[in-house]
């Protein structure tokens, strides 16, 4: 069944946007949404139309406890966090991690330090240390860093940064694969945005996906890989996937 046939896609997209798509069909469509830009656009168009119907809904002010709860859930570190050693400890750990080549560590450092600058220059509280994350740095055939991918340990989102433009041949997508350490079959993770970067949704939490993964790789595939698919084209980028904690 081809979900991406335009008429069928539009029918599913509008039922999804309205909410009448339910149960298994809704979950299947959500999986498709994470992998298919076409599906995302089709849904977006309907959501924009339907959102206009929300204007007439009477507002209801939330109680103060909602914001307080948000603040404490998001910004109050658990007690254990304050017992951790210096926030610079991860730097030392990273520097001494011999498993990482020096080039790899160098790029990690500069990218991570830049990304975390607000926390490191004191604009945010000291407890905002680097969260437990999985990080992958993919190199091109010439050994140059090309893509940085990172995700919080229990997150369901992968932050992708293209360190150099990725020339994706027309009619293909840059499919990211995870390669288990035990030599098991590569499985699809996400389609990379063609430029700049951004956040892409993951099919599961990072912990579930990456805990047994040693490497990440990218191939140019004719279409986003479905769950269970295997690479059909050679890897153009690849690199280590490491735990950052």
């Amino acid at each position, binding site marked *: 069944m081809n979900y991406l046939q335009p008429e069928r896609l539009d029918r599913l997209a*509008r039922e999804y*946007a*309205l*909410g*009448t798509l*339910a149960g298994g069909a809704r979950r299947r469509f959500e999986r498709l949404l994470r992998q298919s830009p076409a599906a*995302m*656009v089709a849904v*977006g168009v*309907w*959501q*924009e*139309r*339907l*959102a*206009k*119907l*929300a*204007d*007439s*809904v*009477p*507002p*209801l*002010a*939330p*109680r103060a*406890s*909602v*914001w307080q*709860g*948000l603040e404490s*859930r*998001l*910004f109050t570190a658990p007690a254990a966090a304050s017992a951790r050693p210096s926030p610079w400890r991860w730097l030392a750990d990273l520097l001494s991690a011999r498993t990482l080549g020096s080039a790899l560590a160098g790029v990690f450092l500069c990218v991570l330090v830049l990304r975390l600058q*607000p926390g490191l220059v004191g604009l*945010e509280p000291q407890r905002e240390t680097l969260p437990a994350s999985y990080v992958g740095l993919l190199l091109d055939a010439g050994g140059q860093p090309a893509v940085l991918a990172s995700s919080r340990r229990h*997150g369901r*989102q992968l*932050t992708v940064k293209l360190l150099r433009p990725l020339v994706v041949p027309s009619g293909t997508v840059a499919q990211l694969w995870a390669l288990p350490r035990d030599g098991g079959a590569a499985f699809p993770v996400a389609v990379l945005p063609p430029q700049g970067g*951004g*956040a892409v*949704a993951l099919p599961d939490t990072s912990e579930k996906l990456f805990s047994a993964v040693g490497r990440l790789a990218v191939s140019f595939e004719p279409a986003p890989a479905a769950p269970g698919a295997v690479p059909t084209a050679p890897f153009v980028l690849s690199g280590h996937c490491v735990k950052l904690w």
Partner: protein
Amino acid sequence: MAATTNDDLARLLAQVALRDRAAFEQVYRATCAHLLGVAFRILNQRERAEEVLQESFMNVWHNAAGFNASIASPMTWLINIVRNKAIDSLRSGRSERASTVALDDEAFEVAADAAQQPQQLLEESLARLKIDACMGELGATQRQALALAYYRGLVHTEIAASLGAPLGTVKAWVRRGLDKLKGCLEAAGVHAA
């Protein structure tokens, strides 16, 4: 959210993506009442609607980088997060409660909501969008089917039960309602907010 335009919100969300807490609070203050209203229409329970709102804003904080102004307006993006979470909560809660007796506070809240008339909300929106005449070409029951789906998060079978109409008919009503909405919005030249 009178003073906060979509452009303001888009700019604030970009700051939230950079972990700007003050911007996050501004987004919350500007939109929380409207968003809670949307969740409350669907869940009919203040407590659960507030839980959904909180979960939604957790999502906003973590995923603000995923907001793409070229795909959705900020308000649409926020409404979608809240509606999807409210719908998920509604449907998961429904199966949990299926075995319990419904004569509790919640049952009264649902009864009270029946008087809130999703259809009234729809008519009000259509008038505001100046597409009421165009949408009026649909029958009142057809518009009601659309209203129940959008404002209450009901699925086809529930709409059919609520309107006492056959399932196939309801599906056709909803489909035609959406087609008509698309046509009327386009004819009226209503585009992105």
